[in-house]
């Protein structure tokens, strides 16, 4: 447990010592939110389009910030730190777990400011709603972070990993209901979104903000399963497989 906590502390210290990374992951979704929210502001009959976008944007912030988890694994490998950890007595779950916990905490912390703004845009929301939505963001971060770590284990180049993650993440996000509304979208898009785990998490965050999370057990259950699957994938990959020497 001590190993897990020290590695988690290290991840957080590294993030704090590189503030540009935090700013850059926040900046893009905020810009998308502002521009799309303003551009499509009049397309919703009732309510603010920006408020409709908020949970989806928070999910995007989380997804983009968790890309960094895999990047940090590749970086650890290149700088030599990872090899020292892998031959230490510390269990591999501590390595995967610390990175996922850091991804969860930092992803949720970056997503929460967006959720806090939502009530100001005329949408509902309460303190409890924000807290519950933050938990959903944490689950989303762990899920995406877990699959990101799994992918990063097999990819040596941080550029290659980043490109691959963007190819996976952006369609997942675009095919969720983050931007479109079921009433106006094409039917096939609505069907695809129903089997998209990112949509389960977005729906859960939305329901948490509206105070209706209890009536969305399927979405919440799906999001929890998504997080469990990501965690297991990461622990299994990092735990069982020796990485072949490159030298």
């Amino acid at each position, binding site marked *: 447990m001590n190993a897990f906590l*020290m*590695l988690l502390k*290290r991840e957080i*210290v590294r993030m704090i*010592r590189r503030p540009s990374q935090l700013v850059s992951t926040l900046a893009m979704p905020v810009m998308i939110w502002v521009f799309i929210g303003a551009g499509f502001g009049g397309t919703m009959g009732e309510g603010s389009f920006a408020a409709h976008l908020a949970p989806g944007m928070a999910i995007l912030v989380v997804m983009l910030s968790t890309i960094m988890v895999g990047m940090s694994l590749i970086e650890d490998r290149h*700088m030599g*730190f990872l090899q020292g950890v892998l031959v230490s*007595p510390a269990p591999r779950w501590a390595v995967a777990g610390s990175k996922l916990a850091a991804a969860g905490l930092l992803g949720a912390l970056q997503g929460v400011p967006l959720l806090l703004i939502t009530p100001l845009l005329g949408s509902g929301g309460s303190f409890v709603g924000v807290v519950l939505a933050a938990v959903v963001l944490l689950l989303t971060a762990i899920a995406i972070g877990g699959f990101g770590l799994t992918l990063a284990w097999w990819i040596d180049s941080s550029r290659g990993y980043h490109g691959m993650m963007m190819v996976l993440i952006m369609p997942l996000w675009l095919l969720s209901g983050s931007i479109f509304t079921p009433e106006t979208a094409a039917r096939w898009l609505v069907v695809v979104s129903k089997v998209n785990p990112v949509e389960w998490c977005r729906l859960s965050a939305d329901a948490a903000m509206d105070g209706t999370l209890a009536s969305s057990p399927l979405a919440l259950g799906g999001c929890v399963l998504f997080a469990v699957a990501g965690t297991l994938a990461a622990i299994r990959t990092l735990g069982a497989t*020796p990485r072949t*020497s490159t030298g």
Partner: protein
Amino acid sequence: MSESVLKVENVQRLHKTKQGEQVGVHDVSFAINAGDWVTLLGPNGSGKSTLLRLISSADWARQGEITIVGIRVHPGWTTRERHTVRAALGVVFQSPSLDPLLTIEENLRTAAALLGTSDAAGRVDELMDRFAIADRAGDRVGTLSGGLKRRADLARAMLGSPRLLILDEPTTGLDPEARLSLLDTLNGFKSLDPAPAILHSTHLTEEAERSDRVLFMDRGRLAADATPAELRAGLGDRTLKIEGPEARAWIEAHDLRASFTESGHALLSLTEPELERVMPELGRSGLSFSVGPPSLADAYASIVGRELNGSSGGGA
């Protein structure tokens, strides 16, 4: 008699390079006792790093057995076995296993937590004092010189008082002064109680000269295992090295015995009277040659049949 801290028996691990060539280690066997300093000497690509990765359990041997402190290293080991073996190891890789964004002290405390060291703070302070890095404890590793980084990495590897210290080309990138200082530090470990066994890889003969035993590695195979003195002993009083493709013809014409490297150089191990006899004629031949006391580089070339790339030992 000392117990074997490490036993390597008929170990094999091959992998394909991007060019499709099979590289790795083939059928390697040796053992190291507590307190021994053993050097793996060989050029780049001779299998040293692959072997050290197998011993440090960063990868698994496909054939053969590696036993550390009496426990076999294999993928199916129990949690207790894994913990016992890894706690008995201190590993210094070619690039330091330190986080450049953390300070020296933060790095060592993280490493102590990974090891499960009791009284981590006291142990970290003790090692920072011993390796003379205490005054830079608060500096980020990314800002340190190569020599300081290496000292900090060695302190990290020694945190758990390892029974076996593995060093993969630890002097890479160090200036001569820092290199000598590191070798002196390794030599100083012999006075520790208990003294760790040291397995150290290098392609530099002057580093290998400092160790108790030298293992010659060539294309993944173990070509020799002896003390530096024993390896040089077969080379006579002086080593004569004749360069160029004409060397073979000259040697055959004079009925001399020599070993030839892949690059065509001839190596002759001669007694002083033999040397005095051949020198006048060799001088008149116009061939390029050098004479010197036998070195490990000569022994390597003589046994393996090719020269040690990057070795600064030349015997002339």
